[in-house]
């Protein structure tokens, strides 16, 4: 790992002002992606501003039909939350399937969505449930937040502080994990929301997480695994790597969408 300068932030404003004064600094939350990336020398931030100790970012609250999860909440915290389990059980099942137990003890929701790994689980949750991303300066709908692979609408130095999930009538998540990394080969969040059926796919798309309009239409007409599996996905839009061809992923999208419906 290259040299870096560490700073522990005490509050959100402390974190953003500290980062603003750095040459090429980054926020450090649970570090479960950033630290391995730094160890491989694929990232070399001049400074790390550790936000994992900011208590204000660690709350989960349910207010009416909105579940608000602080950016520094760990996956284990979400997975173990009885409040979230009652409001959006699909979110608990998604969080309990991220990485492994030690990763879930450190990794955070804010870190996951700010990184927007094309195979991460939380981007599918945000997009599929129609969440709103809260930052230190504004609120961004998930539809506008996830711009592309590892790209988000976050401005330089802008920090995710919370995610607001509207409670769906029904939602389910299913993923086919890569057997080695546990990242999604394909992960699908399907939800019946106040604004109709939403379906988000992670792990598969060339441009990262995306909404699948054909699946949304099919499931809007008939909420069933059969309806999902009858929808085909264009392989040209899918990623291909040593773990699976684009045709394989295109096929998996329908299968995982069906299982997501079964899980709802």
């Amino acid at each position, binding site marked *: *790992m*290259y*040299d*870096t*300068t*560490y700073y*522990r932030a005490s509050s959100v404003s402390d974190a953003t002002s500290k980062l603003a004064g750095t040459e090429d600094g980054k926020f*450090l939350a649970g*570090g*479960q992606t950033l*630290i*391995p990336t*730094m*160890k*491989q020398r694929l990232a070399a931030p001049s400074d*790390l501003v*550790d936000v*994992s100790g900011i208590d204000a970012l660690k709350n989960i609250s349910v207010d009416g039909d909105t579940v608000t999860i602080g950016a520094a909440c760990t996956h*284990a915290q979400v997975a*173990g939350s009885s409040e979230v389990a009652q409001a959006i059980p699909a979110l608990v099942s998604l969080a309990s399937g991220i*990485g*492994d*137990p*030690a*990763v879930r*003890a*450190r990794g955070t929701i804010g870190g996951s969505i700010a990184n927007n790994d094309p195979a991460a689980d939380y981007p599918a949750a945000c997009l599929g449930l129609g969440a709103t991303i809260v930052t230190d300066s504004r609120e961004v709908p998930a539809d506008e937040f996830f711009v592309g692979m590892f790209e988000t609408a976050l401005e330089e130095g802008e920090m995710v502080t919370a995610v607001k999930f509207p409670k769906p009538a029904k939602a389910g998540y299913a993923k086919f994990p890569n057997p*080695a*990394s*546990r990242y999604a080969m394909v992960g699908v969040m399907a939800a019946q929301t106040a604004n109709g059926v939403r379906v988000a796919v992670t792990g598969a798309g060339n441009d990262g997480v995306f909404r699948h309009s054909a699946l949304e239409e099919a499931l809007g007409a008939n909420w069933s695994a059969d309806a999902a599996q009858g929808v085909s996905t264009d392989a040209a839009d899918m990623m291909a790597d040593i773990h699976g061809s684009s045709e394989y992923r295109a096929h998996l999208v329908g299968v995982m969408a069906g299982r997501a419906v079964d899980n709802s």
Partner: protein
Amino acid sequence: MTKVTMTVNGKARSAEVPDNTLLVDYIRENLRLTGTHVGCDTSQCGACVVHVNGQAVKACTMLAASAEGAEVTTIEGVAASKDDLHPMQVAFKENHGLQCGFCTPGMIMTATDMVSRYKEAGKTLDEHAIREELEGNICRCTGYHNIVKAIADGASKMA
């Protein structure tokens, strides 16, 4: 350089370390507690698992500076005394839950963490659950069968 202060196996420890020092390197190099291992360097194998504030984490994927003020327990700190073994260590010994032993410290730390988490949540730690919970710990010798048996046995011994 950053000054880090934490409690490791019940003792207050403190040192000035470079900011990019990993917790596992601090434990092994500064504190000379070499029971915590480094297996893969890519955050996958779990040989470096220690408890930080009661949670099992990968010490190779956390900066020492991030553990400021924390209570850390390593494999050297699980038994009641130097001459004792923790019930989970006894179970690994009795069930032949290891061959080369390289992954064992991480396995034990993960095992005691899962037993206490399941107990706290009132959930049953059956064989399937043990296998799922071992997702982040890799063993290249045993094929896991005896590790799973050892953890089930250790869980009953910890009760």
